[in-house]
């Protein structure tokens, strides 16, 4: 049995990123959940949301959250699939698919955030 380059995963940095992003998400998400789902007084309505989303600070937070969460989550998905799928071509296929999904959703989400304007 040889453990050689062709199976090398470069997992170290991804693993590290997973922990770091996890920490970041823990903070942002905790606030996010508290503010939006728990402590929210009114119905979630366009007005309340949109007002917040439009400020530059929230824009940055939201976009970074979007990117980090996508990367964290999709890499997590890759990890899960990688545990069970061992054929090389399947792995390549899945890696590509996940990358495409990631790219599409990042752009899609980011466009929503950036382009959004409210009351001004």
């Amino acid at each position, binding site marked *: 049995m040889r453990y050689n380059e062709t*199976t*090398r995963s470069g997992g170290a940095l*991804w693993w590290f990123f997973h922990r770091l992003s996890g920490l970041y998400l823990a903070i942002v998400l905790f606030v996010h959940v508290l503010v939006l789902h728990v402590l929210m007084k009114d119905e979630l309505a366009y007005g309340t949301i949109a007002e917040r989303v439009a400020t530059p600070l929230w824009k940055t937070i939201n976009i970074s959250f979007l990117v980090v969460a996508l990367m964290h989550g999709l890499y997590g998905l890759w990890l899960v699939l990688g545990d*069970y799928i061992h054929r090389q071509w399947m792995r390549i296929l899945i890696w590509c698919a996940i990358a495409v999904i990631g790219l599409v959703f990042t752009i899609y989400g980011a466009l929503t955030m950036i382009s959004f304007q409210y009351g001004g």
Partner: protein
Amino acid sequence: MAMITFRINRYNPDDERRGHYAQEYQLDVQKGTTLLDALNEIKWKQDGTLTFRRSCRSGICGSCAMTINGVNNLACETQVLGLGGSTITVEPMRGYPVIKDLVVSLDPLVRGILAVKPYMITHSPPPSDQERLQSPEEREKIDGLYECILCGSCTSSCPSFWADKEYIGPHAFLKAYRFVADSRDEGSAEHMEALDDRHGLWRCHTIFNCVEACPKDLNPTKAISELKKELVRRKLG
């Protein structure tokens, strides 16, 4: 004295069609009887075809690891009456190919060990007529690492191994870290080379089954977390 039923998962390689099946044996068990004593008693007095590995019967050779009531342990260190209950299930360790009855193939274990270059690597020649010095504090760092008896309980219990037959395995990670942590070893990079691999460290999801299963109370997860950090440190320069 108590009558205990031993429900043993059996498999005869000469009878592939029958596959795995459970067979029950009854035995009068006294206080102090270990599971290995009981199995021997069954083999010697009831059914000579019952097959399992054993040697030291004192918990140091690692031969008699098996799945007892659903958890891996050494038969020779298990007090039958200590398990409670009147039926005891005994199975070969999960995840390894079964050779016969409770005997499993050790190939995955050996493969994992070989992957981490399991020997001390030094480049500087040792001092002549003298040992390499190592302070008691440095020596303490390999406590909990060198005691591994290679029984295979840990890797057999690991869900990552169940999913990936080529997973290097916690026993081998522990071995790797035994050298990485040794102040005398100069080959950390070589021991860790195979670990940054898709069958390596990153397949470990901190499940802790290995720790629960280790009959020597070692902590492969701790070794794994140290190794992961070490690898990241090296990557980040």
